[in-house]
């Protein structure tokens, strides 16, 4: 594969990668190659059949597959080289990537790399759910692929682990695939989706939400037969018969390439750290999308890709000088992470002009402070924090950051 010396390689052809590629072409950057390991570009939306994709980025509401196709068409039209079935397997030096595809083994060295490899749901094993290992345990993504891409019926009665937006989307997919839902299980005191979704799901699919409940074990010989649930308040346990368990949300970045490259990582997102211009800690390596902030909706990932393109184009033109030295932005509990999670003096605005916050707990009307070395750079009040959903704060405070004063911390204050 030939890559021009001024070329850009984007790893991952989902919304973030394709949006970045299209924007780079629009900005008149050099040749852009997107490497996608799947057979079709488009990423996760390919098998998310519900509507609502594209509202923020394309100003229209599309189904996931149509949204994915739309981006692929726009990329083709913009002159992006879109290479599918090709996987980046490692690095040879700072910016040389090793690839494998049906054409063979190859390596390329572009002027800049954008990592847009997305995220995945944490599976049962990584959540350390004990019990036997029967068939019928899967993530939402596998469920959606089976139902929407392969037209399969997946089971009769499911327990869904999680009560976020995506969990209710799994409920809809299960209904489409012919399965009823015994209930959704969350250790949190409330579900985390919008009230309208919740009520809609309750009415339409009769899905019950068991709050403050832990999935304690999965039992079954060849096929799931029942799950054991523990009430976290009383400690009592009970069994629920089902033949399917769907693990939803609990997103984790597919960040192996960033790790192997030696990018600084955020211990909470587990993805590479990036600054408001979407630069990682490594010169010439940018990142965008849900590899950075697991997980935002597809259109937010796409807007991040578009945003990264501007800084990337500037970098290729030699603007901005040397790669900045960053300080980390850390979240203090109950906040889990904040993003962007690197800042330097003179940063511009992050994507959509905001920093995203995630909380591990429900908090009503929290006061939030951004502090660095005893100085408060920003303070304000948010309406609420909901686990699994982003709140946001403005970004002007980055002007006040002192590159010599150590990490910035974002914390809540008691009311």
């Amino acid at each position, binding site marked *: 594969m030939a890559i021009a010396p001024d070329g850009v390689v984007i790893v991952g052809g989902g919304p973030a990668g394709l949006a970045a590629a299209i924007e780079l072409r629009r900005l008149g950057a050099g040749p852009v190659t997107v490497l996608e390991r799947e057979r079709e570009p488009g990423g996760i939306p390919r098998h998310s059949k519900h509507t609502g994709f594209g509202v923020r980025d394309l100003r229209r509401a599309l189904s996931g597959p149509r949204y994915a196709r739309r981006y692929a068409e726009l990329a083709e039209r913009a002159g992006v080289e879109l290479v599918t079935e090709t996987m980046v397997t490692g690095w040879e030096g700072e910016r040389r990537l090793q690839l*494998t*595809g049906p054409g063979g083994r190859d390596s390329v060295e572009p002027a800049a790399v954008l990592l847009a490899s997305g995220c995945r749901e944490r599976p049962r094993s990584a959540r350390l759910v004990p019990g036997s290992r029967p068939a019928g345990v899967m993530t939402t993504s596998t469920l959606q692929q089976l139902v929407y891409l392969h037209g399969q019926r997946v*089971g009769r009665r499911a327990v869904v682990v999680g009560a976020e937006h995506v969990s209710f989307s799994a409920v809809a997919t299960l209904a489409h695939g012919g399965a009823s839902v015994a209930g959704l299980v969350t250790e949190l005191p409330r579900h985390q989706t919008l009230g309208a979704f919740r009520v809609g799901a309750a009415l339409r699919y009769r899905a019950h939400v068991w709050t403050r409940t832990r999935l304690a074990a999965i039992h079954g010989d060849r096929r799931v037969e029942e799950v054991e649930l523990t009430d976290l308040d009383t400690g009592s346990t009970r069994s629920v018969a089902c033949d399917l368990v769907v693990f939803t949300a609990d997103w984790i970045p597919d960040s192996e390439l960033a790790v192997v490259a030696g990018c600084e990582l955020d211990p909470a997102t587990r993805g590479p750290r990036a600054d408001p211009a979407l630069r990682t800690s490594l010169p010439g390596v940018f990142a965008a999308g849900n590899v950075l902030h697991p997980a935002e909706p597809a259109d937010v990932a796409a807007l991040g890709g578009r945003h990264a393109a501007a800084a990337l184009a500037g970098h290729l033109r030699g603007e901005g000088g040397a790669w900045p030295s960053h300080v980390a932005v850390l979240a203090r509990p109950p906040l889990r992470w904040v993003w962007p999670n690197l800042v330097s003096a003179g940063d511009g605005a992050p994507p959509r002009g905001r920093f995203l916050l995630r909380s591990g707990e429900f908090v009503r009307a929290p006061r939030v402070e951004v502090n660095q070395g005893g100085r408060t750079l920003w303070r304000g009040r948010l309406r609420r924090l909901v686990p699994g959903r982003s709140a946001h704060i403005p970004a002007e405070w980055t002007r006040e950051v002192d590159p010599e004063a150590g990490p910035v911390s974002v914390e809540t204050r008691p009311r």
Partner: protein
Amino acid sequence: MAGLEISREGPAPSGPFDVAIVGAGVVGAAIARDLALRGASCVLVEAAADVGAGTSKANTAILHTGFDAKPGTIEARLVRRGHELLGRYAGEVGIPAATTGALMVAWSPEQREALPGIAAAAAENGATDTRPVGVDELYEREPALGPGAHGALEIPREGIVCPFTATLALATEALAAGCRLALCARVLDVGQRERFELRTSRGPIGAEYLVNAAGVHSDELDALLGYDEFTITPRRGELIVFDKLARGLVNHILLPVPSARTKGVLVSPTVYGNVLLGPTAEDLRTKDDRSTTGDGLSSLLSDGARIVPRLTEHEVTATYVGLRAASEHRDYQLRVHPERGYACAGGIRSTGVSASMAIAEHVREGLAGAGLALSAAPAGTEVRMPNIGELAPRPYELPELIARDPDFGRVACFCERVTRGELEAAVRSAIPPRDLDGVRRRTRALMGRCQGFFCAAEVAAALAAARGDSIADVMAGRDDGDRA
């Protein structure tokens, strides 16, 4: 005849055979191979739908030297011999294996005092190359080791192996030498008049000689033959596999100093590039409980946090359970009854992969002594196993292979980098997989950190096409038995 060697349904091949081997785990497969290569007509009889589906697939995947066996036992002798035989065989047929060496770490002055005695016992077992390692050298060689170690004993020839490929290679070669494989055939009863008559769930099988390699069920088969010499109390071992990104934390197999009851919890690299933590040890009353437990997993995690603290920063890729075929005796229950032509290879507690080929040699000599006619020199076969380890280039890294067949350049399972070419080869291999777990053991597909998020449907489609089933049936674990 090609295509007739393996059956999963219909009447089992009834024979009469020279030898029936019950149990297609690593021990049964090694015995079948050894005998078939020397001209015996054999049938390998297995209750499960695949070979290596019991304890052989769920263990610590260590190629033991036998240094820590009880000197003078059959186990000590056969693990030592088996280490040599399997080590050589691995190279010949392409079983992923590596000699990483082990460090037995002392965590207290008392444990350090125990090391010279362990070294002396190791020397009795033929491991004369152990060496004490001081604290400074220990931390130099294992920088991620937790604080508080008092030194270690190095056992340089301990190694790691792929137990999946080991069993498959032995069984594949047995078949290449003419052995029949009767799967889904549970032995219900055994009689012996002129010859052994096995009554199985797939009908009768006759054989002149009988080998018991039935693992956790070896005591039941032994009892059917009228013996009452041992009882298997399966010992549950829970294990945790950590993400490949943790691989750099561990250079050797890190062993604890054993207690009277158990060898304890180890941390080991795997041939697939992960890190393994385990096993627990818990006696069970039933033989079919392969469940992990909350207590087991959390006790392992606290052990892991002590041995290699940074391990717990990494994601867990998989958890699993192995059932060791432990009996009340502290040795294998390996007996040949020449008058009846029966060999029992039971109670193979936790070193079965390492000892398998030596157990086969021992059983062969016993049956030959009992009159089984065998040729002196084994026949040669051309068995060569696909490489699923990280110790040699994988198919996705081989330009010549991809040039011959572009499907070897199409990665299907991204986490483990398994290509479509490998999936296709596996579903059409000499012993094809029956379920997704079988595909996993043959290719590593679905074994990685995403556990199928990206590729489960795709991998299931490849198996469904080969089986002539729906993807839903494959995903649901449904099999012929469910429809019958």
